[in-house]
């Protein structure tokens, strides 16, 4: 366990703990489709993906955002999250189980940095910029979040 965050102890430039996901598989994507209700066939039906010139299905961007949210809430308490926004910059393909070399393209690494400390709505808050990239360095998400810190 990391020690409790306090407004006084945290500084602009501090890094949030780096989070590394499991490699995303087709099973993770199917589970996410069912959980979220997003049944766009691009995320589970390879024959549909191929009609649009893609070699295989792609993950929901929202699964990668969900993983990014998990990284954030392993660091700050869920109840302290005030804003969370991302821009999706690349698609994420799942690993092929018969190709161990494809693992890195499906592994999401979330990093973040505190960029601002401020007071808003009567509470002390921090803003962090975050990035989620795969293990080859391909950036999937750039974004930020705001959290209350006591």
């Amino acid at each position, binding site marked *: 366990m990391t020690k409790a965050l306090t407004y006084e102890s945290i500084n602009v430039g501090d890094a949030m703990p780096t989070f590394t996901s499991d490699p995303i598989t087709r099973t993770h994507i199917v589970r996410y489709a069912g959980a979220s209700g997003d049944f766009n066939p691009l995320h589970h039906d390879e024959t549909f993906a191929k009609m649009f010139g893609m070699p295989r299905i792609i993950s929901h961007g*929202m699964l990668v955002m*969900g993983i990014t949210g998990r990284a954030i809430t392993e660091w700050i308490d869920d109840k302290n999250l005030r804003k969370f926004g991302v*821009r999706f910059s690349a698609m994420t393909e799942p690993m092929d189980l018969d190709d161990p070399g494809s693992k890195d393209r499906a592994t999401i690494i979330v990093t973040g940095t505190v960029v601002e400390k401020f007071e808003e709505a009567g509470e002390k808050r921090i803003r962090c910029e975050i990035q989620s990239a795969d293990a080859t360095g391909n950036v999937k998400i750039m974004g930020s979040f705001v959290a209350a810190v006591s």
Partner: protein
Amino acid sequence: MADKSKLGLEFPPYVYEVERGKIAEFAIAISQKESKSQIKQIYADSAAAKAAGYKDVIPSPTFQTCFALWGGEGLMPMIQAININLGRLLHGEEEYEYLAPIYPGDVMTGVTKVVDMYDKEKKGKPGKFMEFTVLETEIKNQRGEVVIRNRTTLVER
């Protein structure tokens, strides 16, 4: 091609009752796990959530994506209403503002509006455009409190 005449369109409100099981199912999915016992317990176990200072289990940060997809008519009618080609649809941006807590049994009502539509020329491909559609959703609970403000940017490549 996204139909620009849809700017300002307001979709019919959706109503979604937050279910305990769905909160856990969603948390398992984003945690890449197999069962409730493997995830953070504030998403799965009421007693653990209370011990952590919550009234009951709470949803994980992107859970509200379920509201429109399960509470509304799903993705397809919305995409068809704006006339976006599904195979060319990409998710551009997603943003949430969290204004009040959400617990099982809460009834969410969301109203989504098309607030912006614009084109951007593709990099290195003069004359070829990406089309952007921006949706804003205000989600209220059964007491009429705004719990989430959400902004979604869809891109047709």
